[in-house]
């Protein structure tokens, strides 16, 4: 399938700002999906509200653009009601980890079969640059004029603690690794979570001396450190932060029975 069979060409150029990492994630996702030769018409795409959450509207298949923070809950209903559909959620750090935090952790725990891709741009892009639950400590945003005093979530680590079957984190500077992880996630039975640290030059970069998207990519390259999958996180570790470190890699890859298997819902791929 060509790129613009997978995506809705008539909606291009898309709404995302010049240099926004969302488009990069779209490339990698298309590549992964296509290489696995998954049936597009049997895949549903669900988004919350936010720039990242708009990806489903560009894909040439069934899309559910929902309310802010609830994409996983909507996806859970859809998936369980129609288990022959593959279910993919696109979400942002705000959508998933701020307002949607509860559905996120309970989604990991419940382990319904779905792929959740969170584009973590460390900011609220859509609403114009407010701090997010992943904005690094001391960084600027429109709601932290004196620097962000809070410390960020480590979304991937929380997904591990909450029980997801597959957890990985990459950045938009790691397109090949990301593509591989997306493939793994799409093939995983159960809740698979991929976090992509991504650039929002408009609303994060500009306020943090990285107005040029390539500066952000370079930042990602320099701060990324691979996580040792066999070793759990250290207890005092707060990511993308004090140490200026972005931990990347596969965090967990396990095979807890998924919810559909547990309750014996119809057939499922």
């Amino acid at each position: 399938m060509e790129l613009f069979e997978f995506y809705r060409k008539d909606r291009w150029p898309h709404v995302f700002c010049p240099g926004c990492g969302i488009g990069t994630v779209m490339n990698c996702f298309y590549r992964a999906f296509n290489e696995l030769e998954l049936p597009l018409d049997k895949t549903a795409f669900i988004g919350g509200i936010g720039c990242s959450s708009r990806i489903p509207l560009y894909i040439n298949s069934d899309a559910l653009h929902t309310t802010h923070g609830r994409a996983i809950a909507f996806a859970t209903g859809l998936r369980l009601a129609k288990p022959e559909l593959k279910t993919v959620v696109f979400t942002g750090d705000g959508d998933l980890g701020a307002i949607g935090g509860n559905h996120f952790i309970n989604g990991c725990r419940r382990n319904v079969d779905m792929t959740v891709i969170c584009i973590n741009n460390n900011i609220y892009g859509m609403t114009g640059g407010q701090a997010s639950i992943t904005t690094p400590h001391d960084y600027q945003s429109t709601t932290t004029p004196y620097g962000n005093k809070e410390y960020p979530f480590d979304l991937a680590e929380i997904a591990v603690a909450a029980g997801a079957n597959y957890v990985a984190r990459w950045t938009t500077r790691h397109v090949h690794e990301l593509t591989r992880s997306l493939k793994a996630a799409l093939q995983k039975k159960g809740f698979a979570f991929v976090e992509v640290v991504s650039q929002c030059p408009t609303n994060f970069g500009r306020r943090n001396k990285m107005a040029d998207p390539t500066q952000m990519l370079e930042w990602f390259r320099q701060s990324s450190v691979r996580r040792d999958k066999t070793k759990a996180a250290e207890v005092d570790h707060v990511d993308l932060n004090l140490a200026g470190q972005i931990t990347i890699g596969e965090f967990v890859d396990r095979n807890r029975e998924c919810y559909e298997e547990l309750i014996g819902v119809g057939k499922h791929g």
Partner: protein
Amino acid sequence: MKPVIDLKLCKACNICVYICPKKCYSKGADLSEIGYFAAVVSAAEKCYNHNRDGKMICELCVLSCPDQAISWHPETEEEKRK
């Protein structure tokens, strides 16, 4: 195969310029129809994939371009000969 930039899509972020390990791209100087100084493929022949006929071994540009502006096109016979 060689990379081509679609001027109707490129938003001039210059990520391709940054990411290409072979420095095939450079910043543009002309305003495109959609209002950007689109990047240009200035040295396609340096590309890893040049003359490889579909065996893609890098593709950082295609995967990275946020606007789906870069795609692969066959070289002309002349280009291939180079």
